[in-house]
């Protein structure tokens, strides 16, 4: 192989405003590590970022098969980034299966960096190619830019003298790939090394070796005539401040911790593992030393019931699950609603119905959240729109719950739970105080006496002179004694509803975040579609289409001005990752021209899909 130095060749340098790359390989290939390091590097380079890991289905499949492919997608740019991108500019494919299952996400003319060894006949067979197939030849024929690199060989050469087995040496190939990509996008090597040290420690063999591997990858790019271009992605115009990367589940956990501390109450999590919600348990379980109590219960019912018990005891009780687990909590949610105690129920939604698609994303539990209980059982429902919003909205859920002494459901989903973005995180002193509506004076305490917001005072065991008994039977207004009185039942049903409706006074109005306040078309999303919608709107504006955007974070009750907002537009496009659940609710409540855009594929929207619909409506009108 002929080697040249960079000086000798004419290497074009091209400036890009945003790039999507995806590391894909076998579950054991360390793609998440490379991806994460590249993300941090890009963050330090000042780019805006969104990432999404793409794990294989639950069980580890045999090495080399399509079922075992693990990916990490990152989009970084000099402009604001709202989503990890519809399609990739660069695919780093460690084996044939990785290429096979991800080729359709690559842009026309996109670059494929193929790890040579991963495309040998054994790997082709494992990936399910016929014995005479030549996938790499085919992709070239299709016009993709193919860069074949023997990453394993570089790794082996780099670690040749370290006295470790070939297999272990080859494990370094993900770092070589990282180095190569860092070279392509001119990420400063010193920062990459610093990050590597943070991750693998400063001492120990692998700390050094990994740096050597990255350097080898970089050199490989530098010295080899693999590419005729190199790219520059300048810093994005981000707000100044200190940032960190955050995934939704982590943000959710942190939001709860912050809320607990701000309320002066202990945070208690009752949970039972379930994909994609388990990480919230894992995260909170770490902070016992700070006073966070987490309890893994025997099932979801026990989990919510333990949280109810904790709340009853004057703590901030929280339970976290996903669709099937939330289904099991239905009866106990009714109890919490009837008791009127604080409780935060987080549903990190996944594909349904039933066990469905555990590792895939969906927004199809909105109906369950709104309506899925026996009797008249209204509950506050809110939903974050992005990973970092999981922090804010978890905090908000706890705040509403404690201050209004009533359960709150928070709807996240697999997409924002695992997706990550930079976050200009707040300091605790910047966060509002939470004032749980605890009973204050002993004299004449009545458990179901309410204030002007229909909120009852919350007395907890240990408070002297306020002993009382409550339960799931209908309660007499004010006293809380069991009551079968017909009029009292009507009254209590109404009061519980009014209490939830009254929340409208405590939540922000809906804002038009993009576009005009009035017009032909409003795109109204909720939850995790925020990024894709924002990208689509931005693209639409670039294309000269007049369209506005608003995003619902409060689903029950709706913001006070929603009706006004809806009335300000001729058409309302409601994109949802379900068959039209929010649209159904809107239609019932408001007289607006609702146009649905639905996708139930276990995948987030592509911005393109939304843009197409916007364009279609724009043409049509």
């Amino acid at each position: 192989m002929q080697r040249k130095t960079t000086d000798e060749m004419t290497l074009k340098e091209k400036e890009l405003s945003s790039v999507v790359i995806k590391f894909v390989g076998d579950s054991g290939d360390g793609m998440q590590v490379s991806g994460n390091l590249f993300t941090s590097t890009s963050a330090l380079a000042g780019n805006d970022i969104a990432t999404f890991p793409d794990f294989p289905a639950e069980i580890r499949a045999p090495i080399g098969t399509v079922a075992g492919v693990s990916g990490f997608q990152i989009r970084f740019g000099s402009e604001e980034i709202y989503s990890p991108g519809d399609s990739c500019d660069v695919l780093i494919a460690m084996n044939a299966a990785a290429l096979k299952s991800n080729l359709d996400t690559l842009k026309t003319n996109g670059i494929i960096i193929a790890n040579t060894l991963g495309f040998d006949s054994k790997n082709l067979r494992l990936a399910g190619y016929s014995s005479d197939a030549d996938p790499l030849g085919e992709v070239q024929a299709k016009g993709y830019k193919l860069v074949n690199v023997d990453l394993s060989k570089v790794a082996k050469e780099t670690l040749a003298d370290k006295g470790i087995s070939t297999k272990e040496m080859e494990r370094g190939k993900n770092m070589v790939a990282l180095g190569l990509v860092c070279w392509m996008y001119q990420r400063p090597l010193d920062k990459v090394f610093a990050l590597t040290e943070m991750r693998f420690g400063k001492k120990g063999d692998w700390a050094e070796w990994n740096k050597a591997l990255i350097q080898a990858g970089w050199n490989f790019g530098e010295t080899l005539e693999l590419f005729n271009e190199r790219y520059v992605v300048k810093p994005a115009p981000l707000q100044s401040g200190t940032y960190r990367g955050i995934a939704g589940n982590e943000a959710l956990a942190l939001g709860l911790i912050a809320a607990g501390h701000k309320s002066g109450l202990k945070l208690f999590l009752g949970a039972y593992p379930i994909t994609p919600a388990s990480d919230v348990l894992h995260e909170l379980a770490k902070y016992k030393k700070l006073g966070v109590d987490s309890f893994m219960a025997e099932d979801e019912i026990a989990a919510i019931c333990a949280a109810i018990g904790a709340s009853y005891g004057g703590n901030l009780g929280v339970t976290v699950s996903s669709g099937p687990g939330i289904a099991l909590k239905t009866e106990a949610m009714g109890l919490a609603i009837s008791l009127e105690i604080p409780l935060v129920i987080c549903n990190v939604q996944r594909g349904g119905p039933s066990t469905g698609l555990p590792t895939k994303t969906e927004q199809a539990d909105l109906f369950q959240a709104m309506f899925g209980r026996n009797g008249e059982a209204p509950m506050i429902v809110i939903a974050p729109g992005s990973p970092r919003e999981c922090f804010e909205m978890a905090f908000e859920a706890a705040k509403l719950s404690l201050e209004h002494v009533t359960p709150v459901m928070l709807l996240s989903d697999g997409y924002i739970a695992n997706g990550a973005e930079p976050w200009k995180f707040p300091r605790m002193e910047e966060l509002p105080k939470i004032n749980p509506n605890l009973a204050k004076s002993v004299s004449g305490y009545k458990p179901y006496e309410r204030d002007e917001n229909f909120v009852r005072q919350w007395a907890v065991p240990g408070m002297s002179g306020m002993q009382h008994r409550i339960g799931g039977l209908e309660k007499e207004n004010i006293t809380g004694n069991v009551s079968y009185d017909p009029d009292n039942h009507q009254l209590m049903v109404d009061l519980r509803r009014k209490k939830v409706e009254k929340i409208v006074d405590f939540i922000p109005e809906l804002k038009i975040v993009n576009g005009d306040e009035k017009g032909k078309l409003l795109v109204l999303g909720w939850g995790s579609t925020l990024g894709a919608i924002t990208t689509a709107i931005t693209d639409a504006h670039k294309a000269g289409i007049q369209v506005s955007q608003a995003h619902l974070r409060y689903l029950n009750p709706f913001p006070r001005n929603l009706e006004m907002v809806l009335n300000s537009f001729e058409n309302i496009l409601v994109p949802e990752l379900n068959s039209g659940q929010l649209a159904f609710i809107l239609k019932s409540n408001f007289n607006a021209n609702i146009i649905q855009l639905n996708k139930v594929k276990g995948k987030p929207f592509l911005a393109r899909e939304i843009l197409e619909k916007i364009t279609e409506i724009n043409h049509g009108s």
Partner: protein
Amino acid sequence: MEVDSVLTQTTQPKVYTSKDFESDQDVRWCPGCGDYAVLNAVKKVLPQTGKRKEDIVFISGIGCSSRFPYYVDTYGMHSIHGRAFAIATGLKITRPELDVWIITGDGDSMSIGGNHLIHLCRRNPNVNVLLFNNEIYGLTKGQHSPTSEKGLLTKSSPLGVIDNPFNPPALTLGAGASFVARTIDRFSAHLHDTILEASKFNGTSFVEIYQNCNIFNDGVFESFTDKEAKDDNIIILEQGKQLIFGKEKDKAIVLKGHSPEIVSLSEVNETNEWLHDPQDFVKATLLAQFTYMQGFPRPFGVFYSKQRPTYDELFESKGWDADESEIDKVIAGKFTWKVD
């Protein structure tokens, strides 16, 4: 913290009488129901626990027996069917200073609540379980329960129950319970003493209380309470004492190897003598087996009582030791960067 500030307003432990624990609610069990006896016994035990009223909590499920919390002037929750165990666990481990009682029925605890019961037993938080076993569903008007005897004719089993009944002490011992006892509504002193002992035990204390439902299953426990019959049908367990029973106190249960045998008192000797030892798991298991062993008297008293670390101790709930700066650190995480 808000809770604390209110809590510290509270008074010091008081000396109570049974009457202090009467709530303002009418007791609504059927006249003659065995539940009354248990309520009375508990109201007598509570003043002896040394706990302040406001630090006592009764959590129940659903059933006739589960109305119990309404009738004691402490904190209380009449929750949902079968879930009192889980609710009490969440409460106790976050507020270990509270005295937490669980009130449940045979349907509530062994049917719908079975899973939570066995998990409670293995975890062993310091709570007291009073299981009102009337071998029937009272509140829903007379269906068979998991403790109903085979063949029982009820609305739900018009051809007779075909399910093998659970043996509550055996089940809880198998699940790892650390305190298992049985008593009966009609022996008021025994009832009182057993509940008192349970309340003193540090760990989950499980008390099965035979309770007569005079409406739907009247007389199921008659052979244990009937003046004539009872002495031959019951055996009262007392620590360190032999297992003697019979009207004439002339029969004893001994161990032949690992097998229990009924002999006349005179046949007891050093090698076969069975002195009741609630710390002995195997003996407790054997006693539990008497429940359905033909010809054996039904044991009442503490089958098993052996302390081990409680779940609330191990759980180590504490307040926010952290100040805001520590939370700030957690929120910041390990890797941050600055944008100017």
